[in-house]
């Protein structure tokens, strides 16, 4: 018995010695780079989850075509949380001891439940689809993909107010979900700066029929509308407004989170002429973007990519850069150290070449990211202006 134990120890020592020799040369210790992604592909935002998974997988496929990361292929492992916080914790607990970095979680509810677990274990979360307010709490173990809401949004509503100077009073449809009330507040700041009065009308989360709500809004006798609610509700409300005789289409503004397929399918022709803002420049001539868009359309019945479609594409590439620049190995023995290297790289990346724009991060906050204002004509966005 003792002999076996001795033999075993000897072998282990040999392996260890051999191992540390190779690690010393920073060689990759994995066959495949697994990037885990805590997404919600079932439940109320399943459709958004689907395209975010799609773009992460698309990025991985592209990287693998180009030779992988440090010569090894990359694979995205999707974990479905179904927007349930406890499911999020469960999924996080499966990986928190082992992985290098995690993308997500999605959305806010799951972030707040599961990220504390990651923080306790020193695991960096690429929270690339969420407002600043939800991630700043966990800095430095998260990053914010967007500038703080109250800084980034007022300029775009100011721009919209300048385009439509006749407006004095607008009704804002607000759905109280996650970050949206905060964004609505930021819209109001910008409009107030331009002396436009804002009256909020709350959209019930489980509403299916909007005539009553629209009657209520019209009774305020406004000059315009802002829609800060989920995409199919926004589409239906606009349709109802048009049915009830609203004609000044450019006085309707839709916020970025509603810029999604459901808006266009439910809104249909009623959307013609309305304003909308988001972070994607659809006219970008970047070749990667054009390819992305084309393949996305092929896989999605010809629909255009939604407003969050590129986030996790860029995130995968950012992780790739972090691994390459930091010469990371994926070796379990160096896990804690390499986790911090990824974290520090991503939170302070300089001139990162995203699929559309190039930007930098400073301590987890983007320093330069434009917002685009569009007019929708025949289901396509036409650029009106750019803030910042």
């Amino acid at each position, binding site marked *: 018995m003792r002999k076996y134990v001795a033999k075993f120890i000897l072998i282990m020592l040999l392996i260890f010695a051999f191992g540390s020799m190779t690690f010393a040369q920073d060689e990759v210790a994995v066959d495949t780079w697994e990037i885990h992604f805590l997404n919600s*592909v*079932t439940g109320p935002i399943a459709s958004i989850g689907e395209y975010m998974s799609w773009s992460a997988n698309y990025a991985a496929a592209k990287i693998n075509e180009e030779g992988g990361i440090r010569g090894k292929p990359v694979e995205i*492992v*999707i*974990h*479905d949380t*179904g*927007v*349930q*916080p*406890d499911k999020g*914790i*469960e*999924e*996080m*607990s*499966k990986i*928190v*001891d082992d992985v290098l970095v995690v993308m997500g979680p999605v959305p*806010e*509810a799951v972030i*707040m*439940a599961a990220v*504390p*677990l990651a923080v306790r*274990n020193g695991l960096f979360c690429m929270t690339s689809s969420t407002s600043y307010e*939800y991630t700043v*709490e966990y800095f430095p173990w998260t990053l914010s993909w967007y500038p703080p809401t109250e800084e980034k949004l007022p300029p775009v509503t100011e721009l919209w107010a300048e385009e439509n100077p006749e407006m004095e009073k607008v009704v804002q449809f607000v759905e*109280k*979900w*996650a*970050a949206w*009330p905060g964004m609505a507040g930021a819209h109001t700041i910008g409009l107030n700066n331009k002396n436009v009065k804002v009256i909020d009308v709350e959209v019930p*989360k489980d509403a299916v029929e909007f005539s009553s709500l629209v009657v209520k809004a019209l009774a305020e006798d406004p000059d315009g509308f802002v829609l800060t609610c989920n995409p199919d509700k926004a589409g239906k409300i606009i349709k109802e407004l048009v049915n009830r005789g609203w004609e000044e289409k450019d006085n309707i503004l839709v916020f970025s989170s509603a810029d999604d397929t459901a808006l266009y399918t439910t809104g249909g022709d009623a959307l013609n002429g309305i304003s909308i803002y988001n972070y994607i420049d659809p006219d970008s001539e970047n070749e990667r973007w054009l390819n992305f868009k084309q393949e996305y359309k092929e896989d999605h019945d010809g629909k255009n990519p939604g407003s969050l479609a590129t986030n996790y594409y860029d995130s995968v590439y950012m992780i790739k850069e972090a691994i390459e620049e930091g010469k990371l190995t994926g070796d379990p023995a160096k896990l804690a150290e390499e986790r911090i290297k990824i974290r520090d790289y991503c939170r302070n990346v300089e001139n990162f070449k995203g699929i559309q724009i190039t930007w930098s991060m400073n301590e987890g906050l983007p320093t330069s990211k434009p917002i685009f204002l569009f007019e929708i004509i025949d289901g396509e966005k036409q650029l009106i202006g750019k803030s910042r």
Partner: protein
Amino acid sequence: MSSTLMYFLGFSMTYILMAWSIYLPYRVKHLHFLAVATMAVTSYMGGILSVNFGWSFLPTLLLSIVIGALISYLISHTIGNAPTFTVVIVGITFVFIIKTAIENTDYLGGTIGLFGIPVLDHPLIILFAFLLVIGYFLYRIDHSRIGRAASVIFTDENLAKSMGIKPKQIGMLFQTISGGIAGSAGVFYAFFVGSLFPDFFTFHLIGTLMTILFIGGYTTMWGVIPAALILRGVPMILPSSIASWRLLIYGVLLVAIIATKPKGLITKKMLWELLKKRSGS
């Protein structure tokens, strides 16, 4: 212990506690979803007390048991012997109202949720000890005169009345205890997860608890234990692509079990026979 195992056990035990709060009133045919509303109330209360007022776990737990029982006791005056579906709809309506109230109260975090609740250092030990206490308590009720009376009410309320059993009293008692257990489950959830989100306390939770109760079996308190472990455990080891069909699998299982073994996998009769065999051999 790995994080996976610890969360698996912790969640399973919390769900057993929740399922027990639904199990007890169902002894007299009350699907008491008011318990789910109670969990929402006490978990948020626990969260606020600990985050904003620095309360520690134990007093929060005790208070929440009292509050939970009190809510159910008050409501039980009208639904203590109401028909099953009246109890169902009262419960679901409360769940809906409480959820909306939380979503519209900024102090409770609104739709954003409440977070930063200090989690327990040794949640598993505390949960396990508490489960033992509640389990013993339920066992005593089940095997008392009241438990037997409840079985009569379940089979035939008129027969029970003719035997001098007062269905309303027992209904009220069970609903009140259910409220107390639900109250504790809410606080355990809050101090285990560390964050609260109004959407958690909805139809989804009701569906999950029903699946656990009816698949495990409602004729004995032991059924929910394996059901909670299996229904929460199996999806954890399945690949995510299959696990995301979890609710569909729950639904299919629920229909299948009701159509084939409506009393669930584990029944009182089965346990009796097991017991007899052991003492016989």
